[in-house]
């Protein structure tokens, strides 16, 4: 290709377009972080130069229940992912390795849970949970969060198992290793990067979920996504606090996302796109 001046103009134009999109995609987050460091008096000034203060952080994290909401989110999302890993990884293995009647239908059944409208699940569940005493409890939320974390884990981990050649497993079997040693000492280490990143992605999705905790929890368990709406109704004078609440709730997900970059596409598409 010749690098003519026409080509250079085109490249410059492409860079500008990309830059415009980057501003649209990233500036709101920058703005949120900036406001979180602004004093209440300076929130209204829309300037980029100001005296950064930690007052908002101190107020939200130490003088309100926000820290407790974060712990609730951690317990519920972490618990959900843990349960999903324990029951989901063996299921993923079975769906990858065994050939049995109705296998694909079973796998699609599990996937279809992801596409069921959350409200549809949650309306009757609200009634059932109240009868069973699961309403507003950790176990109740961890259970319903399985609809978020389990299909993801099973489908993505299944793909990673399928990537491992059966011959390796066969060789170990011939060498006389029992199945549990093959599974835990050989297969699990092989899929570990994939497993860890899909577990982290499942955690992010669970952490971000809104409809389930909104309807199935009220006071004893109060994840951040629901707690944050409490700051919404308040007057604009407290926008600093709102920005802190938003920043703190976004942080864990963004940090985890940076760790799992290489596996992100595969996880997001449930293994449909092997990026």
């Amino acid at each position, binding site marked *: 290709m010749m690098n003519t001046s026409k080509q250079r103009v085109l490249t410059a134009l492409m860079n500008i377009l990309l830059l415009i999109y980057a501003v649209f995609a*990233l500036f*709101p987050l920058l703005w949120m972080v900036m406001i979180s460091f602004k004093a209440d008096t300076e929130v209204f000034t*829309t300037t980029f130069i100001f005296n950064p203060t930690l007052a908002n952080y101190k107020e939200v994290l130490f003088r309100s229940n926000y820290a407790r909401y974060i712990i609730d989110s951690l317990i519920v999302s972490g618990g959900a992912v843990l349960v999903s890993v324990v029951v989901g990884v063996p299921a993923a293995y079975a769906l990858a*390795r065994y050939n049995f009647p109705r296998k694909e239908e079973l796998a699609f059944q599990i996937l279809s849970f992801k*596409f069921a409208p959350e409200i*549809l699940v949650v*309306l009757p569940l609200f009634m059932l949970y109240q009868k069973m005493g699961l309403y507003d409890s950790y176990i109740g939320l961890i259970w319903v969060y399985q609809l978020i974390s389990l299909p993801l884990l099973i489908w993505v981990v299944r793909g990673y198992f399928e990537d491992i050649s059966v011959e390796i497993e066969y060789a170990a079997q011939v060498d006389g290793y029992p199945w549990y040693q093959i599974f835990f000492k050989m297969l699990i280490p092989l899929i570990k990067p994939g497993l860890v990143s899909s577990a982290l992605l499942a955690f992010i999705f669970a952490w971000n979920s809104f409809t389930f905790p909104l309807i199935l929890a009220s006071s004893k368990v109060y994840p951040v*996504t629901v707690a944050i709406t409490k700051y919404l109704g308040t007057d604009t004078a407290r926008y600093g606090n709102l920005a802190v609440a938003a920043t703190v709730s976004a942080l864990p997900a963004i940090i985890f996302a940076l760790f799992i970059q290489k596996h992100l596409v595969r996880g997001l598409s449930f293994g449909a796109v092997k990026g």
Partner: protein
Amino acid sequence: MGNNNLGIKKVDLNKVPFKVRVRPYLIVAPSLIITIGIMVPFVMAIWFSFTNYSFQFPTHRFVGLDNWVNMLTSREFWNALKISLLYGLFSTAIEILLGLGIALLLNSLNNWLSKVLRVLLVFPLMVAPVTATIVWQLMLNSSVGIVEKLFNLFGLYNFPWAASPDTALMTVIMIDVWINTSFVILLVLAGLQSLPKSPFESAKIDGGSAWFNFKNLTLPMLKPSLYIALLFRLMAALQEYAVIFALTKGGPGDTLMSLSLTSYQKGFTFQKFGSAIPYILVLWLIINVLAKWIVKRQRIAQKQASGLEG
């Protein structure tokens, strides 16, 4: 997928002992029990749609098709259906077109900007929709927001955003686009990077134009990835709840009362459980039919794409 099951495990299951034959089902069972335990109420829901069930009263009775007839003859339902479809179609269409464009830019510009952006553009996708909505409220607020200040420079004052029926839908769609375009970008980038080199090399020799190559090579080979993006985005956008709820709770008036929000409002605010369910069942039906169609198209696109590679 089929090739992976070669070897030891591919024995005729009818000849192996029962204990071995049920093993895969036993391994999958816990996952199914956990999820089906939650899907049971889903079946109950269908039953409740034929009753006058309410949280307020201890008993309920069968009312036949009343709830369904009431819904189908109400203006509320057709408005909700319209909003869900508009939201789903517009946000998905914009996300796919914009995502495709940005991914193509990122792929062809291999400079530092594109390398940094590949990492950073993931951020909006990882923020909870509720949080994202708050971020945008900070931006759009008429006294604190920077967008208002920016518009003032162009002589535009008090742009209403979510406060006016004329701009509310546009505002929620914009927030959805902000969150989810990254999803399409990531998928298309992965698709672009897995494209085989040889068809492009022979096209270069033939001297086709860039547009010709895009239309006849890149696009058909990207189609499978685009269908996956369409599947995931459309299914989620049709039932989007968090963004609308956090921004306006369905207002102003009933401007943003989608099927999801109407169902929630009827079930919880008005405590009319029986009449809330049909709304969400209609949504479920739409999602199911569309998902099946997209999956079918995706398979066809996949076959055509692998034909091009050869």
